[in-house]
């Protein structure tokens, strides 16, 4: 007899969503939840706010101990898994302990990717993926007057804002030509950049780094364009790599994310995967894609759990949709779906509203009479409504015109009508 | 063994009388068996009851066919029923009637006859012709087989539906006192 029916490795959004989905279909099957952390579960997404002081590090936990008791879950903290063996149906922990399972979910997320830049490994740098990272960053910030951030993704931009608000001189170095290149088009990125600039954050875009050196009061960064920068602290925020190693040597390669099917199955017997550790099909073209967002982790976790528990109501994963919200310096923005598309050919149609006076920008992308993408800065649109319209492929038909004119109201009406 | 047969009409309490007598005789130290004759219980219909007593235990539970004593609670009954059937020729008759002995068509050879105007007494005590307790007094007077005290005791544990115990005690006494014994 295995020790547990369901083994969930990783206790963040994907793992917790899976756990709840399992319990909906199987009230009694034993569940073991492992976290490599010593703490209660928390979200990596909350870390920039811990760092910024917005969130209290002691109050960021997603669930309390009582919850696991009520759900009948054996929650083991400080249990890093070194091997998840499909053949043996057994997990090996760092401690050497083994746990037998019938079904396992890999929801170990990802860790910061450290770019191969000369000298970087010899230089003390900060990352932000764990609560410990956030605390280290926060204490490092207190003695620093300047900071260099490598990467203008969400983590880098959040960090830049926080460091700036803390009075540091901040420089962001980004290889790509615009900030948040994964979510925003040039126009929106430009607006975001301007706001950062107004707050004194220096953004060096299209600037690959050649090497890094540690110096007496911090470190120096040299760029390909010949510029040399120096700061008290340096932070690396250039993306993540999946924590997939426990599946190594079982015939799959998860270096770019463990590939999962529509039910989050890995291809290894009785092993599912969800969240930032996975690659899954794209909603738009079915190609394998790495999403790495919180909402996708939740979606995938729910499907994985339902599939593991053989819930007859399980629905296949519709595919990853790029999406996120982002707030900065009192502004807010969102991006859903194919938001960066430009009008091309007969099918794709873009509806744009830009009001510079209020820093407001709104973009809707249609493919024929379906909404496929939306983006907004300080827009009143409801990103959740738009996401579901995209995902459900709502045929707008004769409503399209009305929707384009009043997307907020008609969007709400449409979803209201779809509500069961 | 001494066998007594009660004759009356439904409502007059012949069965109850046999039961009271049984109780009274037990008070006197006798063994008894008493049963009613069985018919439909209707007011006014002729009814009979049987009682036998002895110093020895009695085993048989049968009707009485050759009574030593007949008690008739209703003066009109002999007109419709042969109350003397099977009677011991030397038996005793106790009858509710205001008539004189000579006016009655009695069998020959009776050893003792007690006559009592039970109707008259009953009407004066109860306002209704319930003659059973009166006739028990009459039987006591006629035969001496049972004392008034024993009869009174016998009545104490009986549920009278129509009259109080004290009226029945009076009825027994008057039956005893107003019986003419021949």
């Amino acid at each position, binding site marked *: 007899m295995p020790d547990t029916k369901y083994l969930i490795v990783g206790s963040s959004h994907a793992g917790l969503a899976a756990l709840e989905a399992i319990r909906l279909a199987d009230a009694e099957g034993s569940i073991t939840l492992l976290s490599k952390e010593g703490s209660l579960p928390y979200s990596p997404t909350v870390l920039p706010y811990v760092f910024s002081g917005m969130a209290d590090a002691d109050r960021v936990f*997603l669930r309390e101990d009582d919850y696991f008791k009520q759900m009948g879950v054996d929650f083991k903290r400080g249990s890093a898994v070194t091997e998840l063996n499909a053949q043996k149906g057994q997990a090996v922990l760092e401690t050497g302990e083994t746990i037998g399972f019938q079904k396992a979910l890999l929801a170990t997320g990802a860790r910061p990717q450290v770019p191969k830049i000369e000298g970087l490994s010899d230089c003390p740098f900060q990352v932000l993926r764990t609560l410990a990272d956030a605390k280290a960053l926060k204490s490092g910030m207190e003695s620093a007057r300047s900071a260099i951030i490598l990467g203008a993704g969400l983590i880098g931009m959040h960090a830049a804002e926080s460091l700036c608000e803390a009075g540091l001189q901040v420089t962001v170095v980004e290889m790509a030509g615009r900030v948040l290149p994964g979510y925003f088009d040039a126009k929106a990125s430009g607006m975001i950049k301007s706001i950062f600039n107004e707050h004194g954050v220096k953004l060096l875009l299209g600037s690959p780094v050649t090497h890094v050196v540690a110096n007496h009061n911090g470190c120096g960064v040299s760029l390909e364009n010949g510029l040399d920068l120096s700061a008290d602290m340096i932070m690396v925020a250039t993306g993540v790599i999946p924590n997939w190693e426990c599946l190594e040597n079982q015939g799959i390669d998860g270096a770019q994310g463990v590939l999962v099917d529509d039910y989050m199955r890995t291809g290894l017997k009785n092993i599912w995967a969800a969240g930032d550790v996975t690659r899954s099909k794209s909603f738009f073209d079915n190609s394998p894609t790495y999403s790495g967002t919180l909402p996708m982790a939740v979606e995938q976790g729910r499907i994985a759990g339902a599939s593991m528990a053989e819930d007859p109501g399980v629905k296949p994963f519709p595919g990853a949709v790029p999406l996120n919200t982002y707030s900065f310096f009192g502004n807010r923005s969102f991006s859903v779906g194919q938001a960066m598309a430009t009008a091309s050919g007969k099918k794709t149609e873009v509806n744009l509203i830009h009001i510079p006076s209020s820093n407001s920008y709104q973009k809707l992308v249609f493919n024929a009479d379906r909404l496929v993408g939306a983006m907004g800065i300080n827009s009143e649109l409801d990103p959740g409504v738009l996401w579901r319209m995209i995902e459900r492929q709502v045929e707008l038909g004769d409503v399209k015109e009305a929707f384009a004119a009043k997307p907020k109201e008609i969007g*709400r009406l449409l979803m209201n009508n779809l509500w069961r | 063994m001494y066998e007594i047969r009660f004759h009356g009409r439904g409502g007059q309490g012949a069965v109850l009388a046999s039961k009271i007598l049984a109780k009274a005789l037990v008070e006197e130290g006798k063994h008894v068996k008493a049963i009613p004759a069985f018919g439909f219980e209707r007011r006014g219909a002729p009814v009979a009851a049987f009682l036998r007593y002895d110093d020895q235990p009695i085993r048989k539970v049968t009707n009485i066919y050759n009574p030593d004593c007949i008690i008739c609670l209703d003066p009109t009954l002999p007109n419709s029923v042969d109350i003397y059937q099977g009677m011991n020729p030397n038996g005793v008759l106790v009858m509710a009637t205001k008539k004189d002995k000579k006016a009655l068509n009695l069998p020959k050879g009776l050893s003792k006859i007690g006559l009592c105007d039970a109707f008259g007494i009953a009407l004066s005590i109860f306002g209704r012709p319930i003659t059973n307790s009166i006739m028990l007094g009459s039987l006591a007077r006629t035969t001496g087989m049972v004392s008034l005290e024993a009869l009174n005791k016998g009545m104490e544990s009986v549920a009278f539906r129509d009259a109080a115990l004290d009226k029945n005690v009076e009825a027994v006494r008057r039956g005893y006192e107003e019986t003419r014994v021949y």
Partner: protein
Amino acid sequence: MGRSYHTIAFDAQKCNGCQECEKACAQAKAGVTDLVHSRIKVSPGRKEGEWGLALCRQCAQPLCVMNCPGGALSKDPVSGVVSWDESRCVGCKLCTLACAYAGITFNQATGQVMKCDFCGGDPACVKSCERGALQHLTGSDIYNEWGDLEDLFVPGISACLGCNSELLVRHTLRRVGPNTVVATPPGCIAGVGAVGVNGLTATKTPVFHPLLTNTASMLAGARRYYNRIGRDVTMLAFAGDGGAADVGFQSLSGAAERGEQIIFICVDNEGYMNTGVQRSSTTPYGAWTSTTPVGSVLRGKTRDAKPLPIIMLMHNCEYVATASTAYMEDYYQKLEKAILAAKKGMAYVHVFSPCPTGWRLPPARLIEAGRKAVQCNLMPLWEYESATGDMRFTHPVDNPLPVTDYLSMIGKYRHLSAEQTQHIQEHADRQVDLLRKFMQQRMDLAV
């Protein structure tokens, strides 16, 4: 898990876009009338006079909660309300991305998200809506109360596909609880194994097979003894219509007259469904059964059903009600009353119980048939309480559907002629009329 909660329902037909609800919400939540603070949003539709609503649905598995990285959103397991904790909100707005209904939105005045919290159970918006477009539906938490109670019936019972007897028994037993003696005389409920088969039993309560004829008497005896020794043990019967209206009627009537403290539930499937679909006295006019067959001479039952609930009403039972598994909230409320009434005397509940097997009714349409029967006034739902003398419809049907809506669903009525259908329609009308007349006067049967 699997809980039900109160909800605010929106009837778009009744909405005229007056936005009184938004004003009420803003007033309740921010103390001002500025609609920016309203958590309920009426939005104009495509056409003139069409209105939509954005409001938190307090989802069963709320995605906003799952998507909140700060643990600021949580669903209260008791009230079902998804609540937002300002002190834990980091302002990321992922919740607005998670919600498909714009139930949680950004408030420009406060710079924070906001959402409906049901005003602590008494929503201001609902009270402000004079047109009744908003309704605070509160009946559902009764399911939670019952769901929390111990299940006393075995999972997996050998009833016919679609039969509602398991639904009825399981839910009833949960509510009456383990301190109950259950009687199931011969019939479907005993037949599916409620008492058990060959030494195995299906309930966690004491349960037995009375005779078809003496259910009420046996329970009466047990109850009297428990009363005598000072134990308050509930006596519960699940009898079929045969065991109640036909051969079991004498003991039922006797027990009712004596005021025996029993909950007597007649599960009326309109005949002897357990023994091969023979007619009983509650089989309706026109219905096919194997003893009221349809042929060239006979065309189903020739007499109307015996109105047993009304007959029990005339016994002045402590409580009399009709019920249907198609209206479980109604049944729940009645069972609550029955439990209380049975502390004093007999509580008689007549449960209309369509039979997929014996009626030639597709199992999937069983509940629908139950609803139609009520909507056609063939099985009006009413109750009578002896304590107050009150009698009322619990689900009044102002505009009844024609009986054909119901009859056409059911195979046992397939052969009906127009005249027979007419008879059934008239019977339904007469019956409701009679009940109405009863209700117009106080039912002081006890006097």
